[in-house]
């Protein structure tokens, strides 16, 4: 492989990672934009999404990478796994909001954040106790199709991941920009009090936001499994921290910003993994987070969160 091929390969890898981080970053950004809360539960809702997707695929009789499907059965199984993961995670998100966070709305200080940390812990340990801490073989029914571009390899799964991530992002953008609920969400993000006075049902907006953000995390869990062929109870932390960095990089509260930030972080991870070793990728990305917060806390594309005095 020439160095140009190597770079191209890293770009391909980076875009796939980036697609994943973008979806996860969207969840942070949506919740932050509406509720001004860093949702630490998001880390492990994502992990639960991966596990649920895995169990769903296994329930279709798929094991590891041996079973290969094509055509309608392939689309059907993958679609079902995505749908189940997104619905279960969305449901968890709604539950967290409705049962645990709504009673704390308006409480000053770190109480809501501490609650989400607690939820994250509970999710992690429930999965740990139920499924164990070993790395699990994530069923992947995709046919092993790959294309050569120079010396680099582009696999079907990467193309699929890009398409799905793109579709979800386009769908979300449409939802936020074009629908009635989307308009209510944008109004709430600007000024919850004014939105309430104009007849926006803020409770429903917040709940929808948690549903969307958690459902995206579920989809992201499925993508993680398809990409790495594995699921593990501790995948949430590293991916979550990267995705949060992506959200901050793009400007927290800013939907297109989160997408851009995710891709940038994915590319940085792929390239730095190649050059300085994966062990230090966390250090580099964390360093980037601190740097962005210090130099440009509004992120690349500016913050669209409420401007409260």
């Amino acid at each position, binding site marked *: 492989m020439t160095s140009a091929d190597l770079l191209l390969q890293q770009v391909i890898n980076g875009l796939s990672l980036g697609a994943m981080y973008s979806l996860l970053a969207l969840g942070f950004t949506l919740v932050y934009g509406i509720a*001004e*809360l*860093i949702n630490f539960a998001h880390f492990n809702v994502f992990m639960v999404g991966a596990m649920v997707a895995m169990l769903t695929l296994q329930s279709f009789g798929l094991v590891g990478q041996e079973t290969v499907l094509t055509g309608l059965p392939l689309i059907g199984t993958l679609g079902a796994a995505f749908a189940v993961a997104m619905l279960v995670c969305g449901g968890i998100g709604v539950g967290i909001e409705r049962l*645990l966070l709504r*009673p*704390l709305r308006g*409480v000053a*200080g*770190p*109480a*809501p*954040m*501490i*609650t989400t*940390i*607690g*939820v*994250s*812990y*509970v*999710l*992690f*340990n*429930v999965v*740990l*106790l139920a499924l164990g801490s070993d790395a699990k073989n994530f069923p992947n029914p995709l046919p092993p199709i790959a294309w050569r571009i120079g010396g680099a390899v582009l696999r079907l799964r990467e193309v699929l991941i890009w398409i799905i991530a793109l579709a979800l992002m386009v769908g979300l953008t449409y939802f936020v920009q074009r629908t009635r609920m989307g308009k209510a969400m944008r109004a709430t993000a600007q000024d919850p009090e004014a939105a309430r006075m104009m007849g926006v049902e803020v409770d429903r907006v917040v709940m929808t936001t948690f549903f969307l953000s958690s459902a995206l995390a579920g989809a992201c869990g499925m993508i993680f499994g398809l990409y790495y062929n594995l699921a593990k109870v501790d995948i949430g*932390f590293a991916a979550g*921290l990267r995705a*949060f960095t992506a959200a*901050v990089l793009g400007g927290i509260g800013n939907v297109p910003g989160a997408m851009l930030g995710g891709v940038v972080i994915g590319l940085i991870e792929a390239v730095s993994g190649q050059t300085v070793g994966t*062990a*230090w990728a*966390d*250090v580099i990305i*964390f360093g980037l*987070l*601190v740097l962005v*917060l*210090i130099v440009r*806390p509004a992120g690349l594309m500016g913050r669209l969160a409420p401007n409260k005095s």
Partner: protein
Amino acid sequence: MVSTALAYVSRPLAGLTPERRRALGLLALGLGLLVFPLVYDDDATIDSIANAMSYATLALGLNVVVGFAGLLDLGYAAFFAIGAYYYGILSSFQVMPLWSEAWAPLAFLGLVEKMNQGGPDLVHFTLSFWLALPTAALVSAAFGVCFGAPTLRLRGDYLAIVTLGFGEIVPIVARNMDGVTNGAAGLNGIQAPRLFGQSFGVDSVPYYYVGLGLVALLIFVSVRLRDSRVGRAWMAIREDETAANAMGVNPVRFKLLAFAIGAAFAGMTGVFFVAKLQTATPEMFNFNVSSMLLVMVVLGGMGSVWGVVVGAVLLQLMQTWFLPQLTGWLHDLGEAVGSPALLRIDLVQWTQLFFGLILIGMMLYRRNGLIPATRKTPPLTFAAQHAEVTRGGFLNLDRIPRWEPGEGALDIRGVSVRFGGLVALDDIDISVPAGGVVAVIGPNGSGKSTLFNVITGLVPAYSGSITFRGQELVGLPAHQVLARGVARTFQNIRLFPNLTVLENVMVGRHARLRSGAVASVLHTPGNRAEEQAAQTSVLDLIAMFGNRLAPRVGQVVSGLSYANRRRVEIARALASRPHILLLDEPTAGMNPAETLELAEQIKSLHEMGLTILIIEHKLDVVTALADTVVVLDHGVKIAEGRPEEVRRNEQVLTAYLGRAARAAVMEADRVA
């Protein structure tokens, strides 16, 4: 039943004052802990208690950061690791540079040894445990400052995620820097502490006593800090950072101080912990430790010194005794009913699940913890509540600084403020003469509060200059504006809700006091005199409002009536010994009688020499108090003059009442 029993037992103690009783209880507890290892000779238990003590010290440190200063630190274990590796590396055989004569002075001090294992001479670090304890505190504090300086300017929620990352990075670094830390395998052969030539070895009892000493020391330090100028500043920042800043507290500086002190506690504990285990691995400092400490603090009560100690003990008890016991009982039950499912359960593995549940449960049902930091003060008696209102005197208020004749005043020249495209203030000129009372009036949204914010440094000026007694205020942070003698109140009352009346007003005195952390912990004579004097004069100020506030000084302000909260805010501003007082709608929400009372009090303050700039809607108050009235509309000054002149000004009438109404008023005037 329990309470009756308690009452019976404590009957001989009932004659003592509460302070005496508390001191007696502490003494008994201390003695009990001191003799415990002598009477109870079980090494495993002693060891477990010593571990609990190290968690208690960590929780005390985290409490300074989270509980006092309100900074959610999710990577606190990183500082624990720094202290641990500091001592581990400097007292083991891990790092052995080549010997050169440059090391000789250190060898003379006993910090290193020349060593030969065949081959060239090497340096062996032999840092003493007793020296490591204080120096680790300093090293960790230095790390805390380096890490905090860039990040503590961020909003609190960003800080949480940054500290989370930091907590994750430190173990990664420890794992990957094999040469220095021996990587994942961990440091080995760390020296046990020695005292009078005796090594502590592996016996738990000496560690128990060192741990007890550490806990006692850190409780002492925590309590002293909490009840000092430093502690009040932390809690003010926690309650309302903007208001704290406007009352003279430098938020970044005090947050850094909290971070550094918290880190110092953790660093000391790190030394103690690895000396006891004689090994250090990266896993000992991962996120689970940070979150366990957070659970301890939340369980005990954020900001409550004794609470977090109890939280640490309870959690340690849960892990080492309760869960294994409960598992045993479940297994017994499983055998009895023949359920293999019950036999498989090992609740110790559920520990972290319980941590999560504790966090959620406490936030939902008992946010202030098992032992809340804010103690309940007894409510006033019926008689006291319904006592006839008395006006206070101004006997001791001659402390308000008087203007020297001819001194400069507040001069606002060409000041504009913009928020994005919106011009909130446009080229404003106002001057407040020394000893004058200037009122600012104008319809809602005309920029009155923005004017106060730009004077006090809470919003930046886009252009123009504001000088006060000849000094430029534009560009100064809020706490320095206050230090120059400009104090304010807020339109929407920004007190520190969970602090008492006295504490709130004492925060106002912050900028005029000097005591730092060290003096506060040591209670130096200077510190004691300063606190005493401050308290006396602050109580004088509160007495200005007669029996409205004086009987309530020990109450938390969130329980006060609206009018009383306004009074506390004015007292808080006066406590900073201002030359000029900026009052933002001081009588809003008061009934006519209260308004009249407050107007008279403001007038008296003015007569005693205070210069006043007041925003007020009630025109009778304005007329009674002000020499000059300035009218703002849409960020522009539309009129200025004596109250009765301004009342007749056409533009003012238009701004307030609209064109038609203005015409009507003018017409009525003509007829009259």
